[in-house]
C-alpha cells in the first residue's frame, strides 16, 4: 500500500518537544481526558485487560496463539493435529538442546581457552 501520508502537525519534531517539556510545569489547566492516553505499546496493552487469575491469562494467551497462527478457524480435530505436531517439534528441540548443548558449549570453551590460554604457557615454555 502507499506509505504514510501523515499530517505535518502530527510529526514530533524536536523543537516543540523541548518547548513542551518546559511548558509542562507551567501548564495551567488539565488537558482533556482523551488526550492524556498515549499510544501504548503492545506490552502495555495487556495491562488494559483485567485478568482475575492466572487461568484466565493463560486462556487469553492460548486464544492469541490460535488467532495468530490462524488455527482459530479450523475444526477441533484439525486444531489437535496442528497442536500435537507443533508440540512434538518443540519437545524434540528441547530434548536435543538438553542433550547436546552442554557438550557443545564445553567443547567450544575448551577450544577457545586452548587458543588464548595456551599463549602464556607456550612463551614460558619457549623461555625456559
Amino acid at each position, binding site marked *: *500500500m*502507499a*506509505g*504514510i*501520508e*501523515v*499530517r*505535518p*502537525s*502530527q*510529526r*514530533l519534531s524536536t523543537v*516543540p*518537544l523541548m*518547548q*513542551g*517539556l518546559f*511548558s*509542562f510545569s*507551567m*501548564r495551567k489547566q488539565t*488537558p482533556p481526558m*482523551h*488526550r*492524556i*492516553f*498515549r*499510544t*501504548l505499546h*503492545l506490552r502495555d*496493552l495487556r495491562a*488494559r*485487560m483485567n485478568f482475575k487469575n492466572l487461568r484466565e491469562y493463560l486462556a*487469553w494467551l492460548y*486464544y*492469541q496463539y*490460535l*488467532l*495468530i*497462527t*490462524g*488455527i*482459530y*478457524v*479450523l*475444526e477441533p480435530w*484439525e486444531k489437535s493435529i*496442528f497442536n500435537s505436531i507443533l508440540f512434538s517439534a518443540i519437545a524434540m528441540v528441547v530434548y536435543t538442546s538438553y542433550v547436546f548443548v552442554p557438550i557443545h558449549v564445553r567443547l567450544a570453551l575448551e577450544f577457545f581457552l586452548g587458543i588464548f590460554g595456551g599463549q602464556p604457557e607456550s612463551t614460558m615454555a619457549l623461555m625456559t
Partner: protein
Amino acid sequence: MTESATSKLLNGDICHRTSNGKKASKNGFVKDHSLFEQPQKYRRPRDKNQNVPHNYSLYKKPFVESFEETPLWVAVLTYMGYGILTIFGYLRDFLRHWDIEKCHVARERDEQKDFVPLYQDFENFYTRNLYMRIRDNWNRPICSVPGAKVDLVERVTHDYNWTFEHTGKVVKDVINMGSYNYLGFAENTGACADAALEVTKMYGVGVGSTRCEMGNLDIHEEMEQLVARFLGVESAMAFGMGFATNSMNIPALMGKGCLILSDELNHTSLVLGARLSGSTIRVFKHNNMQSLEKLLRDAIVHGQPRTHRPWKKILIVVEGIYSMEGSIVRLPEVIALKKRYKAYLYLDEAHSIGALGPNGRGVVDYFGLDSKDVDIMMGTFTKSFGAAGGYIGGKKELIDYLRRHSHSAMYATSMSPPVAQQIITSMKIIMGEDGTTLGADRLRQLSQNTTFFRRRLHEMGFIIYGNDDSPVVPLMLYMPAKIGAFGREMLKRNIGTVVVGFPATPIIESRARFCVSAAHTREMLDTALEAISEVGDLLQLKYSRREQPLPSLGWMSEESLLQD
C-alpha cells in the same frame, strides 16, 4: 532559448522542472512540463520551495488522508497464518478427493471425471477452505428495516458453516455499523415512507415495462428533473439498478479506439463496464495524480498501440469515495489534468452523494468546484437516499443520447414508483425544499459523527485508512483468523459489522468496514466504540505506531490539533 515562454503553464506559473534532471539541451531532449512534479521522496509542506506546483492551492481546506503502513511483524505473521491454513486446505481437499470425508461442494458425476473439468477446483480453493470456515459473518438475514438498529435472524450451524438453521429467535436491536445508511433515510416511518405509501396506492408497485416502451411514468420525469436540479447539471437520467448504471452505460459511451484511464481500486461495476465497452483500459495508481498525468501524456504522445493514430476519446474514471479505502478522490487535481489534456471525466459518486459537502451535493460540493467541469456525473440512490437505483447527469445532449442508446434504458425494467417517490422525498428533504431543517440537521449530524468516530478510533490506536472526512471507516485486521473472530465478537456485543477479506482487498489487508450514519446517536456511537475497544484489546488489534500527542506539549499540541 525562449525557455520562459515554453515552460509557462496555463495559469501562468513557471513550470517546475522535475528533479530527475530532464533539462533542456540543444540536442533535442523533451522538457518535462508536467503539471505535478514527480516527488523523489515525501515532501513536507514546510520544506517546499517557491516553484512547487500549485496543487496545494487547489484545495480550499486541508486534504488529510492516511494509509498507515503495515507493521512488518504483522505482515509476516499474516502470511504465516495463510500458509498454515493453505496446508490444512490441501489436507481437507485430499480427504474430500479420496472420499474419506463427505464433500459438500459440487462435483461432477463419476462418468464425467475424464472430461474437461466443469468445476474449476483450484479457483474455488480459497472459497472452500477459507471462506466457508468463517462464512457465518456474511449474508446474515435481517428481519427489520436496516436503520441505526436492526434485528437479525439467529442461526446456528452444525456442520461448520456448510448449512445453517434458523433457531426461530431474533436478535433484537443490533447496532448497525454496516449498512450504507449515511443520512438515515432507511426508515419505515416519516415523510418518505408516507409519500411512498401514497404512491403505491396510486401506481402500484410494478411497472411492467422498460423506459422505452410503456414504463416511462410521470414520476420518473419529475424525479429526473429533481436530480438534475440537485446536482446542478442540465439533465439527468435514472436507472433501476446502480451496478447496471455503470456496466451498461460505459459501453454505450465508449467503444473501440477509445481509451479508459481507470483508478486501480475502482468498483467492479466500472471495471465490468469498461471491459464490456471494448476500449483500451489503462490503470493508474490509486489517487495518484502523477501516475494519471504520466498515462495521459503517454496516451497523447503515442496514440493508439500499433497505428499511432490519436485516440478517439479519453475517459478518466474515478470514484467519489472509495468504499474499501475510505479515501476521497483528488478532484481539483483531476479536473485540472482533464482540462489541460482535454480528456473526459466520469465520476462515480456512489458513496459520496448526499454524504459529503456542506449541502450534501457530493464530492463536487465538498471541494467547492463547478459541476459543469465533470462531464458525466454518476451516482446511486442506494446509499444516502434509502432507495435503489442509479443516475447519470450531464449535458442535455449526452443524456438524450443515453436515453436512446443505453442498454439499461432499452431493456431493463424501469424503476418502481414507490422507490422513485422515496428518492423524490429524500432529495427534497436534503435540499431543504420540504420546509423543515431535517436535511441540514442530518448532514451536520453525519459530519459530526464521522469526525467523532474517526478521531476516537484513531486515539484508541487502531489503524484506520482513508480521509478524515469520509463516513466509510476501514479498520485494519490483517490476520485471517481475526476476520472471523472480530465479526463474531462484535455480534456477541450486539453490534453488526461488515468484515472484508480477500478477494475484495489485497490478501494481507483484510479489514472491518464501519459506515457511520446520521441516524446514529452519540450514545450508540459511544457504545459501539467501547465494544470496539474491548474487542481490540481482546484480539490485540491496536497496531498503530503513531505517537499520540503527549499532554506535556501543552499549547503547541492544542494548536496543531485544531486542524481536525
